[in-house]
């Protein structure tokens, strides 16, 4: 039996009088690779914020690594949407990645030799060592994405949480990206959240659909009816549930 790392029990959340999430139940286990899809405004970001303890549920209970979210989140590597990053900020790649080590620093908040070794290692893994002194505004979208993943990995996580990781990334980069996640999922659990149904590749093991309520699907084959219910209209399911290579042949 795999270890349970996330448990949501009857979780609801209201913004003012507006109910954003209703009666969510979700269990995630060690080394799971879960895709959560849903339309914009469907409560995806709210769900992430609840899991990370940035918001408190109106009703229900959340456990993260058997702890309340604000304690359990130290095991989570969070990768926010890179499109929301302030690219004018005067910070270079190395400084961004080191900031993932901030909770390990001394009382003067200085990074140790060990922190620097770890940041070098994750830059190596993500193939961005040559960019270390570059200001983040000069990076491409894909490069910035790698920087944010490197920062998350530098926290030495047991769960990687990615918010809209493939928006505006080209198809080739996206394919490489999923191959990389696939490799990574042998070492840690991964949850990725997106509104883009085409983005859920065949490598994602399980899928949950969210639009105020959450439907968990054990495997990837979701009947189109479910999507119609989610998005309120029939949508095109490009490559959904089909091995990714078929999509690539199609593109060529």
């Amino acid at each position, binding site marked *: 039996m795999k270890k349970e790392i996330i448990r949501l029990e009857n979780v609801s959340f209201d913004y003012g009088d507006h109910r954003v999430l209703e009666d969510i139940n979700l269990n995630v286990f060690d080394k799971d690779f879960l895709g959560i899809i849903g339309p914009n405004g469907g409560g995806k970001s709210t769900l992430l914020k609840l899991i*990370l303890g940035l918001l408190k549920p109106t009703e229900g209970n959340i456990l993260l690594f058997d702890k309340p979210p604000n304690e359990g989140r130290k095991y989570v590597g*969070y990768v926010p949407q890179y499109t929301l990053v302030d690219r004018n900020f*005067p910070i270079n790649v190395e400084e*961004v990645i080191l*900031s993932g080590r901030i*909770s390990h*620093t001394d009382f003067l*908040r200085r990074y140790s030799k060990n922190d620097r070794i770890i940041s070098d290692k994750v830059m190596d893994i993500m193939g961005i060592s040559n960019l270390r002194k570059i*200001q983040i505004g000069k990076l491409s979208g894909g490069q910035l994405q790698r920087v944010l993943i490197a*920062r998350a990995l530098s926290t030495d996580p047991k769960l990687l949480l990615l918010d809209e990781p493939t928006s505006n990334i080209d198809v080739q980069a996206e394919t490489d990206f999923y191959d990389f996640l696939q490799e990574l999922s042998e070492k840690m659990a991964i949850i990725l959240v997106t509104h883009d149904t085409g983005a859920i590749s065949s490598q994602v093991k399980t899928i949950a659909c969210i639009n105020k309520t959450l439907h968990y699907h054990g495997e990837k084959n979701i009947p189109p009816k479910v999507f119609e219910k989610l998005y309120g209209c029939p949508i095109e399911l490009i490559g959904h549930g089909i091995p990714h290579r078929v999509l690539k042949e199609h593109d060529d």
Partner: protein
Amino acid sequence: MVFEYAFFQNSLMAGVLAAVACGIIGSYVVVKRLVFISGGISHAAFGGIGLGLFLGFNPLLMAVIFSVFSSSILGIISKKAYQREDTLIGAMWAIGMAFGIFMIYQTPGYVPDLSSYLFGNILTVSRSDILIMFSLNIIIGIIVFTRYNEFLAFSFDEEFSEVTNVPVMKTYIILLSLVALTVVVLVSVVGIILAMALLTLPAATASLFTNTLKKMIAVSLIIGVIYMILGIGLSFLLDQPSGATIVLVSGVTYLSLLGIKSLITKS
């Protein structure tokens, strides 16, 4: 020569001390986009000056206490209010200002010229003011030096730093309190109303040439000193009000450099 007079030396010293505080804290105000909330803090500081005058207590010291207190309230409001945080900041802004005027009006006997607090009067800077400004700079310097990486992580990505358990509320309130201290350093040089200009212009100028926060702070400190010396020098030579001259020199230089830079990057 004017340089031999004690008041001129005091003025220059005050200008340099103000430039140091602005260079450090102004950089955070610019990169973390705290301009509006800093406006609220600086105007609320006027409440402290009024209260100080009324109680017969040093107005600058009272402004320190008052503005640190009000910046903590502003910080909590802006994080906890789900909506209309700008309205609440605007309300604090106006209430602080009004409270200051009200208290000064209640003060019996001689009351110093209001405009020297609103627009600054560098000629009236006293030795004790300089001592206060110097101490505040030391406090600002020590806190930023010992919290540098935490402030950087927090300013760059607040949400991520909260996930990595940086105490974001505490960090935010400390940062706003440092803005409050900087405003007090600026009061006697450019006044409450023009403080905003020096919190933003040197740092904004520095941001045109730098790509890390450390460099931005260093460069904006130097630029701040240049703005101050040019502004104070010009105001003496032309016999114009010091605060307004400093701000005009800074503003015109920043806008010109911004224009030149965008022309260069386009071509």
